[in-house]
């Protein structure tokens, strides 16, 4: 079985600080990590590799620095890694990103199973997975909290608002996973050594037959027209340790004002 895992390099939000004056994120000097949910997608692939036998290819679209994330996935156990990087990809929205990923999966595939995290911690849209599936023309599911592969089908459980749902989907298919699906393992020393020696395939637009105008800023259906800081209008009230009862009193008033009590 051939498995592809789609990963994204995201800022390490544990390290991100808020600029006191501007209220924006200070991203300079903070590290990057593999999007946490993508680690669970990788682990799912490695478990299938171990128990069912499979090859695991990892794809990431991003700047050259995203090589770090791909090397880490090699250290964790991936067989090969593809960095989809081209100045023409810059500024892609989810649709254009999905197009790049889908084109790469078609060029280097076919894959029996494509896995990804349900969403990334930076954009948080959760859109790229389903978009890639439709562009590949394969069925998909999202919010997968457990699954197994047998007889050419993925048998899966999704966790949604009201509870869980079970589904059966024929391969090839694409699944996006939640964090309760497994516990990602740590890279081994041997894995790190292997990763250091491995090559990461650099893939540009021409390699996967993508016209520059169809992706990136120009190819994206959506455009960011303005970025602004929301005005904070919170008239905060503070009660210190000596005035807890007054604070609790205020809390009750607030609940009453909102007819919650």
């Amino acid at each position, binding site marked *: 079985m051939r498995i592809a895992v789609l990963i994204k390099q995201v800022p390490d939000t544990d390290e991100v600080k808020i600029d006191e004056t501007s209220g924006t994120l200070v991203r300079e000097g903070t590290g990057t990590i593999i999007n946490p949910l993508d680690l669970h997608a990788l682990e799912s692939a490695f478990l299938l590799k171990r128990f069912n036998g499979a090859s695991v290819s990892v794809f990431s679209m991003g700047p050259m620095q995203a090589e770090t994330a791909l090397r880490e996935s090699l250290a964790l156990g991936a067989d090969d890694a593809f960095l989809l990087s081209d100045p023409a990809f810059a500024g892609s929205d989810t649709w254009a990103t999905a197009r790049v990923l889908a084109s790469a999966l078609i060029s280097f595939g076919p894959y029996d199973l494509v896995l990804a995290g349900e969403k990334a911690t930076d954009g948080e849209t959760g859109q790229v997975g389903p978009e890639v599936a439709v562009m590949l023309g394969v069925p998909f599911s999202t919010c997968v909290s457990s699954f197994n592969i047998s007889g050419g089908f993925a048998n899966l459980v999704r966790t949604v608002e009201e509870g869980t749902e079970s589904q059966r989907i024929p391969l090839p298919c694409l699944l996006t996973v939640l964090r309760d699906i497994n516990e990602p393992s740590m890279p081994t020393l041997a894995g790190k050594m292997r990763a250091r020696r491995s090559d990461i395939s650099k893939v540009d637009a021409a390699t996967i037959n993508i016209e520059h105008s169809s992706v990136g800023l120009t190819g994206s259906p*959506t455009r960011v027209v303005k970025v602004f800081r929301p005005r904070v209008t919170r008239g905060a009230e503070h009660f210190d340790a000596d005035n807890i009862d007054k604070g609790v009193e205020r809390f009750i008033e607030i609940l009453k004002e909102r007819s919650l009590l």
Partner: protein
Amino acid sequence: MKTGDVMVVGEVRSGVVQPVTMELISRARILADLQGSDVVVLLMSDELESGPGECAAFGADRILLALAPEFGLFNQDIQYRTVVHAVMETKPAVVLAPATTSGRTIMPAAAAALGTGLTADCTGLDIDFDTMDLIQTRPAIGGNVMASIRTPNHRPQMATVRPRTFSPGEPDRTREAKLLRLDIPQEILDSPVEALGAEPAEGDESNIQDMDVIVSGGKGVARAGSFDLLRELASLLGGGVGASRAAVDNRWIGYPHQVGLSGKAVSPRVYIAAGISGSVQHLAGIQTADFIVAVNRDPDAPIFRVADLSICGDLFDVIPRMIDAVRSRIEKRKS
């Protein structure tokens, strides 16, 4: 330039049209009035107890009923193809859907199939009068800045909206809407995806995103058993219990309760953060809460910078006092 209609993809669970649908219809009504167009509501279900009347009262002009036994259990494949089919039939300029797990699953697939853009989790939707484009506003990375997004050259313009983002307007019970049956081609219903069953979550696991009040605990809660204190306050207020990533990572409480970037984004009317320092991760998940109450021992905790009401004190001291105060208020009202 002639502008088309505004379509709302309704959220129907077990034959019941969910409140988020009315929130979207109310907003769609405003957008449609600005453009002089109609609000079309798509309802996909195996059966409908009620709902169309409600949709009309909140502003629907036409209701497309997609009724088939295949909609009984959620099937993303059939649903997204039905949305695509409905869009092709009615050619709306704007399509709005709830950013629930179903909306977040079917809408990107529908957008990809239609070759158009989709903006997730919009907190603002307006019309730009120069171009008649939909201006979609959403929190950008980490939630500290907002981005306004436009879909200039593709139609329809599609957006998802989290539940409770827009308040439903006043229903007008005299309004009527045209009911239309949407015929669904058999090839859409013959899906490779098989929906086998659904299990409701057990008691405590109900969805915190639907709650008016959320009481969340973090590192300060220190152990699993202590979440009972938060549960007690939450249940008195008819709310739910949330948690920071630290509490979930320590396995004091399950992942469905996690609030923040790697968990759920919530928009309760009152959010109570107990023993949560307030990492960027967590703050991004509560920015659309109406009112934030923070209880923390550390006067320098970042949570105090975003809270509307800050109480500096040990949660094991403050929360019981809150419980007592709430309880005595409830008893006073009874007598």
